[in-house]
C-alpha cells in the first residue's frame, strides 16, 4: 500500500550521496590539507564554468555538479574570478568556523553551501553559511555531484524542473527550526512575503516529530526571493532559521527522504554529522567512516532493514550497485577495510560523545543503532557477505572480528540506556543462578519488560539485532541467550510496510510466540523450581 522498497532505495540514494560527500572529505582528511586542495579546485571551478555551456556528461563528479546548476548558468561566466576570490575567503573562514560548529541539518547546510558556491547572490549570508558548514568545498561539490551524476547521465533532467534563472525558483527550504515550531508560525511569517502555495514539514515517521526543516513553495518567484532574503536568520521561538533555495535535486532528495519511512535516520545523521565533521578535521576518521558507511549502505539495504544496519562495510556493495562516482567508490573500499576495526572498537563508547547535544531520548535510537549497526550487518544473510567479499575482504574480516568483539561486550559496554538495561539484566541473570532463582526471575522479568519496552522504541536498533532475539521469557531458559525478540522489530515496523522478509519472519515468530507464551512460562517455572532443589 505504502511506500515500497523503491522509495527506501531512493532514500538510500540520498544518504549515499551524503556519505559520498563525507567520504570525499575524509580523503582530504585534515583541514589544513583540505584547504590546499580547495584552492586547487578553484581553478577547476573556472574550468567547470567554462564547460557549462558546452555540456556535461564528464566522468568527473564536479563538473556535472556545477554544470547542472542551471541557476548559475547565465551568470557563471562572470563568476569564475569572483568565485575564486570568494571561495578563497570561505576557505579561510572555514577552519575558524568549524570549531564553532553547531550541528546543522546536514542537508540544509548542503543546500546553503551549494547555493553559496555559486556566489550569484554575493550576499553576506553566504559566507556565514559556508562557514557554518564544516564540510569542505570539495564535499559540497561532491554532494551536488553525486546525485547529479545520475541526472546528468539521464540527460537534461533538471532543466524541466527548474528554469535556468534562479528567479524562477519558487521553492525554499527553511531549516534550523525547533521541533515545536508550528506550521502556523511559519505561515504567519511567510505570508508577509507573498502568497504561500504550500508548506511541507519534514517529520520523523516513527514519532511524527518535526525534523526542524520544511519546504516552502510560493506562487511567485519574486516573493520567494524576497522571502529568502528577508527571512534568513529570522528568529523562530528564539532560534534563527536558515533559508535556502531549493533546487531540483535537493527537492528530490527531500521528497525521497520524506516519503521514506526511515526518516528518523536523516534526522540523526545530520546531527551526528555535524560534530563528526569536526572530528574528521581533527583526525577522527572513525566517526565519519561509520557515518559514511551507514549512509552508503543504506541504499542497498533499505529494502531489508530500515537502513540502520548499513554501516561501514556497506560501502562495498553499494558501490557495486550504484554506478555513481566511481572515484568515490575507490575511496570507500580501501578506506573502509583499513578503518573498520578501530571504528568498531571505538563506536560503542564513542557515539554518545559524538553528538552530545543530541538528546538520546530522541535520537538515541539512531545513535545507538550506529553502534549496533555493524553487528547487524554482520548478521545479515546471504547477499551481503557475498557482496562484501567481492569488494573489501579485509573490511569483511575486520567486521567479523568487530562483531565478535561486540558480542562479547554486549552486556557490559552498551552505551545507551536501553543497552544499559540489557547489561544489567544480564548481570542479574548471571547472579540469579547463585541466589534464589525464583525471586530473581521475578525482578528479571520486570527488567526485561522494561528493556523490552525500550527495545520496542528502538526500531532500527531492533532491526540491527534481529538475529539476536531478546525474548525476555526465553531468557529464563537461557541466561546467555542474547537473541533479540523479532516481534519487537515487528512492533516498530509500520503496519503497511512491505518488508516481506521481516514480515514473514515476524509472522512465524508471532505464531511461535503465541505458543511459546504459555508454554515457555510454564517450562520456565518448572525448570527454575527444579534447579535449586537439585
Amino acid at each position, binding site marked *: 500500500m505504502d511506500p515500497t522498497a523503491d522509495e527506501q532505495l531512493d532514500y538510500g540514494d540520498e544518504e549515499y550521496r551524503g556519505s559520498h560527500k563525507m567520504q570525499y572529505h575524509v580523503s582530504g582528511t585534515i583541514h589544513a590539507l583540505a584547504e590546499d586542495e580547495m584552492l586547487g579546485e578553484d581553478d577547476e571551478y573556472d574550468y567547470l564554468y567554462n564547460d557549462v555551456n558546452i555540456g556535461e556528461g564528464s566522468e568527473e563528479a564536479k563538473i556535472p555538479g556545477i554544470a547542472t546548476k542551471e541557476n548559475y548558468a547565465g551568470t557563471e561566466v562572470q563568476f569564475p574570478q569572483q568565485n575564486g576570490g570568494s571561495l578563497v575567503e570561505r576557505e579561510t573562514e572555514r577552519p575558524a568556523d568549524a570549531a564553532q560548529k553547531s550541528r546543522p541539518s546536514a542537508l540544509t547546510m548542503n543546500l546553503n553551501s551549494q547555493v553559496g558556491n555559486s556566489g550569484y547572490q554575493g550576499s553576506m549570508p553566504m559566507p556565514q553559511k559556508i562557514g557554518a558548514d564544516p564540510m569542505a568545498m570539495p564535499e559540497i561539490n561532491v554532494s551536488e555531484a553525486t546525485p547529479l551524476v545520475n541526472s546528468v547521465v539521464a540527460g537534461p533532467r533538471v532543466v524541466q524542473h527548474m528554469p535556468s534563472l534562479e528567479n524562477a525558483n519558487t521553492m525554499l527550504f527553511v531549516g534550523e527550526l525547533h521541533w515545536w515550531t508550528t506550521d502556523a508560525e511559519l505561515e504567519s511569517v511567510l505570508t508577509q512575503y507573498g502568497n504561500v502555495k504550500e508548506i511541507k514539514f519534514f517529520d520523523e515517521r516513527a514519532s511524527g516529530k518535526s525534523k526542524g526543516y520544511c519546504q516552502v513553495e510560493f506562487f511567485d518567484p519574486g516573493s520567494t526571493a524576497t522571502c529568502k532574503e528577508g527571512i534568513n536568520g529570522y528568529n523562530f521561538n528564539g532560534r534563527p532559521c536558515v533559508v535556502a533555495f531549493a533546487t531540483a535535486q535537493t527537492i528530490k532528495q527531500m521528497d525521497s527522504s520524506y516519503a521514506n519511512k526511515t526518516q528518523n535516520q536523516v534526522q540523526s545523521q545530520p546531527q551526528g554529522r555535524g560534530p563528526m565533521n569536526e572530528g574528521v578535521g581533527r583526525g577522527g576518521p572513525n566517526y565519519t567512516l561509520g557515518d559514511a558507511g551507514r549512509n552508503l549502505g543504506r541504499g542497498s539495504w533499505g529494502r531489508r532493514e530500515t537502513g540502520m544496519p548499513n554501516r561501514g562495510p556497506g560501502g562495498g556493495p553499494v558501490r557495486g550497485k550504484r554506478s555513481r562516482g566511481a572515484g568515490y567508490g575507490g575511496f570507500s573500499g580501501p578506506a573502509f577495510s583499513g578503518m573498520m576495526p578501530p571504528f568498531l572498537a571505538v563506536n560503542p563508547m564513542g557515539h554518545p560523545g559524538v553528538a552530545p547535544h543530541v538528546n538520546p531520548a530522541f535520537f538515541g535510537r539512531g545513535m545507538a543503532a550506529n553502534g549496533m549497526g555493524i553487528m547487524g550487518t554482520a548478521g545479515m544473510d546471504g547477499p551481503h557477505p557475498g557482496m562484501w567479499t567481492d569488494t573489501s575482504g579485509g573490511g569483511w574480516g575486520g567486521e567479523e572480528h568487530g562483531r565478535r568483539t561486540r558480542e562479547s561486550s554486549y552486556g557490559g559496554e552498551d552505551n545507551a540506556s536501553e543497552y544499559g538495561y540489557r547489561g544489567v539484566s544480564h548481570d542479574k541473570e548471571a547472579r540469579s543462578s547463585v541466589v534464589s532463582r525464583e525471586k530473581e526471575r521475578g525482578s528479571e522479568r520486570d527488567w526485561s519488560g522494561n528493556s523490552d519496552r525500550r527495545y520496542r522504541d528502538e526500531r532500527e536498533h531492533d532491526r540491527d539485532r534481529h538475529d539476536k532475539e531478546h525474548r525476555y521469557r526465553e531468557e529464563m531458559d537461557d541466561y546467555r541467550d542474547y537473541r533479540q525478540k523479532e516481534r519487537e522489530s515487528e512492533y*516498530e515496523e509500520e503496519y503497511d510496510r512491505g518488508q516481506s522478509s521481516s514480515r514473514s519472519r*515476524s509472522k512465524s515468530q508471532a505464531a511461535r510466540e503465541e505458543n511459546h507464551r504459555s508454554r515457555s512460562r510454564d517450562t520456565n517455572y518448572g525448570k527454575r523450581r527444579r534447579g535449586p532443589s537439585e
Partner: protein
Amino acid sequence: MVTTSVVNTYPLSSYTFGTKETKMEKDTSVADRLARMKVNYTKEGMRTSVEGILLVQEHNHPHILLLQIGNTFCKLPGGRLKPGENEIEGLKRKLSSKLAANSPGIQPNWQVGECVAIWWRPNFETIMYPYCPPHITKPKECKKLFVVHLSEREYFAVPKNLKLLAVPLFELYDNVQRYGPVISTIPQQLSRFQFNMIHP
C-alpha cells in the same frame, strides 16, 4: 452514552450473522484515498472519523469484531462523519451502514460507550499518531475509537465483499505488522475495562 468501566460481553454464538449486498470501498488505492482526503479537506476542513469497538467473548477472552477486506486488511466498523455531525450519532449511522440489515425493522440499538482512543493524521499520508505532533496546527484527520456495548442478541448483516472476524485481544496485542498501530494497540486501551463474560 454509557460511561461505565464495565463491559458486558456475550459469546459469539448469541449473535446471528447474515449477509447483505456488497459495500464497495470508495477508493481503489491508497493514492486515491489520500487524494480524496485532500479534496475533502479543502472543502470541509479536518476530517473526523469514528470507529466502533464491538466486543464479544469466547473462552472467557474478549474478542473484537473486525471487518476484513480482501485477505489481509482489517478495519474497525466506522467511517467519516459528515460536517457538523454529532460523533455518537455518526457512529451509529456508520455501524448500521456497515453491519445492520437493510430492512428498517431490524435496526440494532447501538449502545455507544466511551471514547477510548483518538488518533491524529498530521499530513495527507497513511501515518497516524495517538497525539497531534507539536509542530502541526492543522491535522488532516482525527479518528476516534468508541467502545460499543452489544446487547445479548443482535443480528448483523455483513456486506458480501467483507468478512466479519472476531479477533481475540491477544492476537492484536503487539501485532502492528498485521493490524497496524491503531488496532494493535486496542488491547492497551481496553485494559482498564472490566469484562463481564456472560455465558448463555
